[in-house]
């Protein structure tokens, strides 16, 4: 996968932007829970009062609160609150104007410092003030500890005390109070503030609604930001991935076009097609996921861990437990399922093989009446596949419920542990809830990475296959300074002691081939399957390079001239008539768009194709489908011959191009070719003796070696291999005819 990363270079900026946006998104996603809980906890439960630090408080209330503060605490509060003796000068606060002197927060207000002090003072004030039912016990407990005079309530007592006595007494109270849970303090403080607001004439209901609206707006703002960054990420990721796919496709395509037959054979056409299509598509899809999910998972995971440690690190070990549990489950499940997974592909292939064998062998199956046997064979493959499929599916069916169970058990574990922490006063209820949220986010991130790592091997196979193509250097390239052809030797093809073997082959395909093909003459090559005929002619347009010896065209070693110029001189007709989608015209003018219509028609005429072309409704404009499947095999072959003729080449190479034609067409075509292109060099590979018996020279190949060179009559007398081939096709007297 990493091997392909270098092709991403130009998208580096976009990827960086994606990273930044993902950080923004993670930030939003992590802070969103606190905004949503604000709406419920503060907005609804606390009536819109955020905490113990009021936005306005009457002088009288503040003064009584000062009584419950230690000295240094009171100072902090005084630094942070400003007294307004003439409140009329103040504008409205929370929709109310004030008549009595009030304190409001100072300019550089330190909420963090003031909030706990005020909270405790408010708690004490309400405890010792009216004395609600719940706090009666606590009150009694404290009163006892202080040994107050009978009948006196603590507020009054404190107010009457001198400063030093009061401070001493407060120290005692605070010792108890510091252990009290923050949530309780907040709750009572909130009630205090709310009452204070009400007594100042503030409409608390309106305030609450406003708070909900405000924090709702904040929450929507965060969501909007998150949405915006997700959308932009999505846009960038889609573009990066698509352009990555496009570039890879373009590169691989160009690369494959530069390959010689050696590389084509090494990879095989089918494999190269898969690499250029499916494999790249796979990578492109993976890329989107990689940019949007895999990159995001660690960001949110780390963010979550960071948040956890900031909230309360005492339960961090639970996250480790969750990690371990999930990892174990994933590993066990995949350990069990993976071997079967691999086996599954084999079984699918097996089923495909059997089905394909049945399909291709239908006539035989019907002739031998073996369909029962075939059905059994299919059944075996089908049963094996179904069994494995069932096992894998069932194992995977276990995955989701188990994962859910683990996540749920983890949250139960957090609650149980959290309850103890809260009981011990080391943790708050809110922290615990937040902890569950963050843990789930971390676990999800981890799950995403695990899921991704399952997909990765498949994709990395694809990546590797693409990389392999891109890194392959074509074995044939142009010389740095191409030589010019020798015009005096126009059309001469010379093989000088040529041997050829495949790069990794053990034996020579061709050994010591030595002959010259002259202009105006027909050189035929014959031999049994596997004797190296096709390979021999494929050396001339440099589809392969010779291993030993040299091939000269127009008096120059073909390795010393440019491939383009070499191929311009050659009209090549392959064994199988290969056409391209388009029209008959685009196919015939394939070598050069500027071929004149007259030349095209002449070529079609020589190739015996003019007849069936004119019978077609659209003539030369008739559509040719991909691979030329909409014309018959013989027509395809004639068009591919016409294509070569249209270019008016010096040298014709017919690689067994006539065997798809019937005898009559074969003969007419050869006659026309001889007549109209008399000056060219013609090299024909053939199977049928009748096709080549009139050639000026016949080269007989046997196992890659020349078994004889001569004319038909000469070879019949001198070459045993030639006689054998002949006899397998004709009788003695016909051969001699």
């Amino acid at each position, binding site marked *: 996968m990493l091997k392909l990363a270098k092709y991403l270079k130009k998208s580096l900026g976009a990827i960086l932007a994606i990273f930044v946006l993902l950080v923004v998104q993670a930030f939003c996603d992590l802070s969103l829970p606190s905004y949503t809980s604000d709406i*419920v906890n503060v*907005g*609804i439960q606390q009536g819109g009062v955020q905490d113990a630090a009021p936005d306005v408080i009457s002088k009288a209330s503040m003064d009584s609160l000062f009584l419950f503060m230690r000295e240094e605490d009171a100072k902090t509060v005084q630094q942070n609150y400003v007294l307004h003796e003439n409140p009329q000068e103040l504008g409205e606060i929370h929709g109310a104007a004030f008549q009595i002197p009030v304190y409001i927060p100072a300019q550089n207000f330190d909420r963090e410092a003031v909030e706990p002090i005020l909270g405790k003072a408010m708690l004490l004030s309400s405890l010792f003030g009216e004395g609600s039912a*719940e*706090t*009666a016990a606590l009150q009694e407990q404290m009163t006892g500890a202080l040994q107050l005079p009978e009948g006196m309530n603590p507020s009054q007592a404190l107010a009457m005390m001198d400063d030093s006595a009061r401070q001493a007494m407060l120290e005692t109270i605070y010792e108890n109070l510091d252990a009290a849970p923050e949530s309780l303090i907040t709750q009572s403080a909130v009630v205090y503030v709310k009452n204070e607001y009400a007594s100042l004439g503030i409409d608390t209901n309106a305030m*609450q609604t406003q708070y*909900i609206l405000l924090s*709702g707006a904040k929450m*929507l703002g965060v969501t909007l930001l998150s949405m915006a960054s997700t*959308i932009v990420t*999505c846009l960038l*990721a*889609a573009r990066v*991935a698509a352009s990555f796919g496009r570039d890879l496709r*373009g590169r691989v*395509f160009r690369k*494959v076009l*530069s390959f010689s037959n050696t590389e084509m054979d090494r990879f095989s056409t089918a494999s190269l*097609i898969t690499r250029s299509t499916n494999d790249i598509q796979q990578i*492109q*899809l993976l890329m*989107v996921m990689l940019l949007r999910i895999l990159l995001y998972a660690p960001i949110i995971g780390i963010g979550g861990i960071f948040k956890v440690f900031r909230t309360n690190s005492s339960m961090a070990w639970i996250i480790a437990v969750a990690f371990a549990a999930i990892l174990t489950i994933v590993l066990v499940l995949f350990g069990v399922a993976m071997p079967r997974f691999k086996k599954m592909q084999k079984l699918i292939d097996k089923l*495909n093989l059997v089905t394909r064998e049945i*399909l*291709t062998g239908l*006539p035989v199956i*019907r002739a*031998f*009446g073996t*369909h029962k046997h075939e*059905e059994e064979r*299919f059944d075996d493959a089908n049963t094996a596949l179904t069994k494995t499929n069932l096992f894998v*599916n*069932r194992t995977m*069916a276990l995955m989701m*419920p*188990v994962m*859910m*169970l683990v996540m749920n*058990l983890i949250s139960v574990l957090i*609650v149980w542990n959290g*309850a*103890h922490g*809260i009981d011990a006063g080391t943790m708050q209820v809110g922290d615990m809830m937040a902890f569950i949220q963050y843990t789930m986010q971390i676990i999800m991130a981890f799950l995403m990475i695990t899921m991704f790592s399952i997909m990765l091997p498949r994709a990395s196979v694809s990546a590797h296959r693409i990389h392999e193509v891109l890194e392959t250097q074509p074995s044939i390239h142009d010389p740095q300074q191409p030589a010019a052809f020798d015009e005096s030797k126009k059309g001469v093809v010379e093989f000088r002691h040529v041997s050829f073997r495949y790069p990794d082959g053990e034996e020579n395909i061709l050994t010591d081939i030595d002959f010259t093909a002259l202009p105006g003459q027909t050189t035929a090559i014959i031999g*049994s399957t596997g004797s190296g005929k096709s390979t021999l002619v494929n050396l001339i347009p440099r589809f392969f390079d010779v291993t030993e010896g040299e091939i000269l065209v127009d008096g120059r070693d073909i390795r010393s001239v440019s491939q*383009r110029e070499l*191929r311009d001189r050659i009209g*090549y007709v392959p064994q199988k008539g290969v056409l*391209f*989608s388009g029209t008959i015209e685009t196919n015939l003018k394939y070598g050069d768009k500027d071929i004149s219509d007259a030349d095209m028609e002449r070529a079609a005429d020589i190739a015996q194709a003019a007849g069936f072309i004119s019978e077609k409704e659209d003539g030369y404009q008739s559509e040719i489908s991909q*691979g030329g499947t909409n014309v018959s095999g013989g027509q395809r072959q004639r068009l591919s011959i016409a294509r070569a003729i249209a270019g008016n080449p010096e040298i014709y190479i017919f690689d067994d191009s006539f065997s798809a034609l019937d005898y009559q067409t*074969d003969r007419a075509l050869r006659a026309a070719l001889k*007549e109209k292109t008399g000056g060219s060099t013609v090299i024909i590979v053939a*199977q049928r003796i009748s096709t080549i018996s*009139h050639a000026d020279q016949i080269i007989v190949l046997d196992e890659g070696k020349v078994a004889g060179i001569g004319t038909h009559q000469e070879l019949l007398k001198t070459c045993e291999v030639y006689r*054998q*081939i002949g006899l397998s096709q*004709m009788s003695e007297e*016909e051969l001699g005819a």
Partner: protein
Amino acid sequence: MSTQKNTSSNRSFRPRRGPGGHGPGAPMGTGEKAKNFKGTMKALLSQLGAYKIAVFLVILFAIGSAAFSIIGPKVLGNATTEIFNGLMGKLSGGAGIDFAKIGTILLTLIGLYVLSSLLSFLQGYIMSGVTQRLCFKLRKNISEKLNRLPMKYFDTRTNGEILSRTTNDIDTLGQSMNQSMTQMITSITTIIGVLIMMLSISPLMTLIAIVMLPISAFLVSIIVKHSQKYFQAQQEYLGHVNGQVEEVYAGQNIVKAFNNEENVIENFDTYNNILYKSAWKSQFLSGLMMPLMTFVGNLGYVAVAILGGALAINGTITVGNIQSFIQYVRNFTQPVQQVAQIANMLQSTAAAAERVFEFLNEEEEEQTVANPVSPEGLNGSVEFDHVRFGYNPDKIIIKDFSAKVRPGQKIAIVGPTGAGKTTMVKLLMRFYDVNSGAIRVDGHDIRDFNREDLRSMFGMVLQDTWLFHGSLMENIRYGNLNATDEEVIAAAKAAHIHHFIKTQPGGYSMELNEEANNVSQGQKQLLTIARAILADPKILILDEATSSVDTRTEVLIQKAMDALMEGRTSFIIAHRLSTIRDADLILVMKDGDIVEQGSHKDLLAKNGFYASLYNSQFEQAG
């Protein structure tokens, strides 16, 4: 497989699907739609009828699992409330947090979660069983169907097409059915359960939550509409680009031989660019779905919170209830989104199922007749009586053909490529029926035989040597599955292949590989001849090879063929002149019809089409 023809037909390109049936980047479905969604679904459901109890259990378990997961959060809420209360109690001098009670609650919770997961697993377990068994059955049906379809059917379809029904389509069907069934039940149960919970808390707030649905649906439909457009464009251009790749790679040496690289690249780049544009647009648009839905979900959340706040001020609702309500709102939007996805998945289920059912409903050829003629003791004489035939009734190719063949005679069928030489074979084997007239074997119309019996009288050796992945012994025995090893070896000796087999590693147990290319073409011919000898048919059909194998094997093949034809009525699609000249009767075919018939001498004397065909091989060119 071994033959040239298959490799080309199987290359028909079909993008492989991702492991889940869809590419992960294409959550909007594959753009495939069934022509008849309702009908197909009905048919599919009736197939599921065989697993009624299992399906019932799946539904039950899915509902149970979903229900428990709805209750879960509420119980967890109880635990936190308990902690909170305990805390308050502690402050007021009480016993503090009641861990026994919390323990009980949490244990209940664990019980619920375990139960929920267990049910969910059981549900998945049973569902996998149902879908896999259904897939097994459908595949089996397809394989049996293959043997009952008329040959005509296969002429108009590529092997790749049929192959993709047994694998791709059934795979998609299994995968998507498994997922969509389960998810649909769970989602619907969740929606209903949550709805009930919400209604029980506050009908007014429920109304607000439901109002969000049409908004979501509206947004989803807009996105789907647009992204579908680009998705289809993407598929289309992916097809173009892949087509170009296929074509150019297949003809790579032609492209190079004609110096056409630049043109081809230019063309490719044009399509590749269009593909790029539609690819990122469809990807982007389908990616919009999630953030938009989240936003709408949050919008609903805020709306509910505001309303809840107002209600709380009025005192018509408790704070705790608002909290649980809000939890449910969050659980509400997710299954609604899922339902949209499932609808898509069902579409591809239906599309796959439709193709499978379509195939299974193709017309079959009848296998037996009312009073079949027994093939026992027949001599193998064949009579063509005014045979008239065309692949299409409106395009008759054999107009009026009559001939009588005595047992043991050799009949050569000759003619140029594409003249329809194999038509005669197909008629004899009753792969096709004549339009009028009759073909008789020993005086019995071949339509009066059971197909299997009729075909058992014939042996075939075709140019496309059909061998399969298996041992040489198995491949020869294919001619007669009941043959003993000795009989197989005897047949191999008669076919002059025994010696070759003995020299192979493993001898008769040597395995042919999947492409059957670990023996040469010539040996393959000999193996199929051995197979035909083993079958010991009354009538032989031979297709001579056009391409020459190496000369030594060629001689063996000739000998083996001669041995095979000994004493049997033989129809030979002939290419060798020696075979033709020795034939008792030559049928000359042109453009599908039999234009001349007679012996070599008669036909040469006639100086007609046969004569010109024969002479064309020996005339000097030019």
